[in-house]
């Protein structure tokens, strides 16, 4: 199961947790605090190909829209359906029930190049 500690981080504030060849993706606690009350999430489609570092999802708060970048490349194999009715889960549990989608990774080296939690925490100081 993913947690803040066992995930890796992109400098654009997404986290990814790899199990086998599938990465679960979400946004960091820091990111959800910066975004504020999340009211709608435009999730990617299952089957969609995504590329590391490219926009594939939009998180809307009352005030603004934030683009979410895929931390690794591959195919979207699952999205968090619960967010369609309860987008606020991302505010409440960014590292738990508020995960966004899962990517079947095609380039394992991309995951290895992400930051671990301590490096990420250092980067947002």
């Amino acid at each position: 199961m993913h947690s803040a500690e066992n995930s890796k981080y992109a400098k654009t504030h997404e986290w990814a947790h790899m199990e086998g060849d599938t990465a679960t993706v979400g946004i960091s606690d820091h990111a959800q605090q910066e975004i504020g009350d999340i009211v709608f999430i435009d999730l990617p489609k299952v089957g969609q190909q995504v590329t590391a570092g490219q926009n594939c999802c939009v998180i809307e708060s009352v005030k603004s829209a934030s683009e979410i970048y895929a931390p690794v490349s591959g195919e979207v194999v699952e999205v968090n359906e619960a967010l369609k009715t309860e987008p606020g889960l991302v505010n409440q549990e960014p590292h738990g029930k508020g995960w966004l989608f899962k990517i079947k990774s095609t380039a394992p080296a991309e995951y290895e190049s992400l930051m671990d939690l301590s490096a990420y925490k250092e980067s947002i100081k």
Partner: protein
Amino acid sequence: MSQENLKKTPLCAACEAAGGKMVDFHGWLLPVQFESIIAEHKAVREGAGMFDVSHMGQVFVEGPDAWKFLQYVNTNNIKNTPGTGTYSHITDEQGHIIDDAISFCLTPEKFLVVVNAACIDTDMAWFNKHAAAFNVKITDDSARWGMIALQGPQALDHAAKLIDGVKDMARFTIKEITLYGAHGYVTRTGYTGEDGVEIMASPEAIVNVWDALLASGVKPCGLGARDVLRLEAGYLLNGTDADGRQTPYEAGCGWVVKLAKEDFIGKAALEAQKAAGLKRRLTGFVLTGAGVPRSGCKVFKNGAEAGVLTSGTYSPLFKGIAVGYADTDLQEGEEVEIEVHGRRIPAKKVKTPFYKNRV
């Protein structure tokens, strides 16, 4: 711009102490939110919230011709009975909106005009340019005033603890008051669609007012909640919903243009536009699909562009709401699409205000 270069209101430290997330708003350091925009919106719709609006401008117009001057620079008929206030637009010769402001009559020869923060310098230059023919003295007194907007169904209960007789004030009236030993004004006005007052006092006294309201249980609210509340209430945001190229008619505020009154700046152009009719007008939309409309999103009718949004947000009461300049032939309830992040989302044209208030 770093925050050190921004102008600070007398309530800046109090806002920071209350957990305000401070941002640059037209050169001012102001809170965009405290803990949550949704919680602050709810406080104002159901209880009481307060906003630091000290950045707004206070311009005094005094002299024998004060009223005549204001009639000349405003499109609306400015009331000249002491204690009354009038919302109006200030337009240029083409009838384009320069600012929207409320002129309060203190005496027949002294008015307080409360103007938008971002427009203070433009308004002063405009007023001075046209003042020569009038016996008036115009003073930008903005720096000497702090200002709090106290809004919500319980706002008056909280205000009554500080201000005698505030509940007896009629909507859009002004009263001179003394607060913590300082001279001030209270007006029964606001920008949220709820009942409430706006309180102006010295930079020192306004901090005391903030602290007293906080202790009384009023929730501090930021610019984020203010924008949702004003959009729900159908209020124009000058600079955003009007950018100097639209007339009051186009901005959906034709009721502030009084063509029957004597000459005023922009009258001929507005008369001509009224006779010719409008192509586009500020129009309300509600998304019927999921998404959040934003400024700049395009409106489509049967695949053809029919408008562009100027303001849009997520409303806790109505979900995706927006206003934008759209073709005047769109009918009430007509189905359109609004393009958000490349996706066309179903929406319909609605009458504004979205929120039909009790004030």
